[in-house]
């Protein structure tokens, strides 16, 4: 079970992620109750139904799913989880940048999947604010050191919209 890090501390995960089992389709899968993170395709297929029976809605985005396609729906989501199937697949960083910078998504943005200590700093900079650290990894060390290997950065990013050269005295 992945350990959730949120607001710089270990947190309890109250969300469950809907998984589509073999033989099920986004159209046919039963929608559970409670705080659910819905796969992108389920959201797209069953949007009205989900809205009618859920107050708190989460969305799961895979690397090849396009933010543009759900950009108009962002107000519905309390949490958006961006999946990193492998930590070397960097598409999620662009997904996060777009959600925060272009589409002004304000809710929780969670990194899930192969989420490791050494990528937390970059994830934070593009706009993630919660992290489901991979099972078996040291959470306290990650919290203590993973977010602060560097004290500043050259580029503009979600957390620092001004590049360093504009912040020179």
């Amino acid at each position, binding site marked *: 079970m992945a350990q959730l890090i949120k607001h710089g501390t270990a947190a309890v995960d109250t969300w469950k992620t809907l998984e589509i089992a073999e033989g099920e389709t986004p159209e046919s899968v039963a929608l559970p109750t409670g705080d659910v993170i819905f796969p992108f395709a389920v959201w797209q297929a069953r949007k009205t139904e989900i809205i009618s029976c859920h107050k708190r809605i989460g969305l799961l985005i895979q690397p090849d799913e396009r933010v543009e396609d759900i950009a108009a729906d962002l107000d519905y989501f309390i949490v958006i989880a961006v999946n990193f199937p492998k930590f070397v697949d960097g598409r999620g960083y662009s997904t996060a940048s777009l959600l925060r910078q272009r589409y002004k998504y304000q809710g929780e943005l969670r990194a899930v999947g192969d989420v490791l200590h050494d990528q937390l700093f970059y994830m934070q900079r593009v706009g993630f604010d919660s992290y489901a650290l991979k099972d078996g990894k040291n959470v306290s060390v990650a919290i203590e050191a993973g977010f602060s290997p560097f004290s500043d*950065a050259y580029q503009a990013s979600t957390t620092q919209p001004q590049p360093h050269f504009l912040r020179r005295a």
Partner: protein
Amino acid sequence: MYKYDAIDRQLINERVAQFRDQVSRWKAGELTDDEFRPLRLQNGLYIQRHAPMFRIAVPYAMMNSAQLRTLGHVASKYDRGYGHFTTRHNLQLNWPKVEDVPEILAELAEVEMHAIQTSGNCLRNITTDQFAGVAADEVIDPRPLAEILRQWTTFHPEFAFLPRKFKIAISGTKDDRAVTWFHDIGLQLQEQNGETGFRVIVGGGLGRTPIRGQVVREFLPWQHILTYCEAILRVYNRQGRRDNAYKARIKILVQALGVEAFAQLVEDEWAHGKDGPATITQAEFDRVAAHFTAPAYETLSASDAGLAEKLATEKSFKNWVDRSTHPHKVPGYTAVTLSLKKHGIAPGDITSDQMGIVADLADQYSFGELRISHEQNIILADVKLADLYALWQKAKIAGLATPNTGLLTGIICCPGGDFCDLANAKSIPIANAIQARFDNLDYLFDIGEIDLNISGCMNACGHHHVGHIGVLGVDKNNDEFYQVTLGGRQGNDAKLGKVIGPSFAADEMPDVVDKIIKVYIETRHPDERFLDTFDRIGIDPFKNRVYEGRAHGKAKAAQKEAA
């Protein structure tokens, strides 16, 4: 040259601490090999055939003497007393211990050097023309914008895990010397109606699928280069293939979409970022450009009487001057190439002692600065004509004055199968065998300008595709063979060489090159260089000579059967 300020120093010191921590967590088993690999690669550390290989960045080719002394020191303290300059402004050490790398990084940081993003699937070192700032044919000095790009690429949070490596080259001259047509992004600085900007070329590359880049924008005002590169990188990061490493470079994406469609995606993406905070301000440009002001040149005459006399009387000195100096924009000065291509040595290799000597020469004759070229040589960029003779004598004693720059034995060569895990075949012994065959200087000069480039595998670190003669190591049933291409070239008319035919065994290579050269010598017009003759007569005469008397096709099969 650029001097670090507080933030630059802070970031590289923090990088040293970060990597030290990563190495210790890896040693403790907290990081698996798979988790550690991309982290060490982004610090230039490969695990190689015999030992780790460690790649240190020389951003846009500029170094000062203190930095070179430190490289020499590091190479003798942590390695075997030598290093290898690559074709992309890096110095490689072949035998360091993984455990020592944090210490090496700490010593490098003291002199403002690092190994950040020198390998891995990320934004790599920015490369440029080795004569930047001094070349007579320069339109715009690319170094301030190269430094601004270096900062932008360093620890970019969105583009640290790209589909594949990403290389940017920038040039500001009439004659392109930075191979901009064969980079993921090639930037050519130019002026249009009094405004400075870039021609932006995307999707070039050598390697397994060599492709000449294509222009996505004819003119981009310089202020927009960061936002425009962000747009290119975002399109690539999202859409580049990740299912097959061999098809993951941006060139494959550009080919798949077509350059118009690709350029449109970039323009659509850029529409959001254009004029955003990353637009470079004049103040920032001026701040960085102030680091690249001209040194304290003396007012000199464009010629030097003492030099003229030496040139007239000492032929070996004249040979060296002919091959090793490049026109300088300031009268009385010249840019000198110190050849790292002494016959019998691995091309691009330099010992720690030589590094110390070059550092002294730079202090004495060239304002304490130097550059390295993608041809794997060292350049002292600001030498007085009056000092050339003294410089030559000292360089000669140090084995750095072989007058073969631009000639057949000034070979560009990757480390090859002697060192590199990726290689299919050795490359250094081929280079050395060809150098031994063409050891007669008069003959070398008679052959004239020719680029011979050797790569030990299709990854093309030796840029074989753009050699006038290119040699590629291939594996045939576990034997090392060599495929030869002719007519490739870098520069404004950069193009890929054509394969001459079936590959050759290692011991045939000096003969093959000899035959190619003989065809040229016999058929050239008086004013023709090798490439001119090749363009006039085509590949067939070379092919016929090289394969003369060799059975191939059906005849070869019949011969085998008879045997």
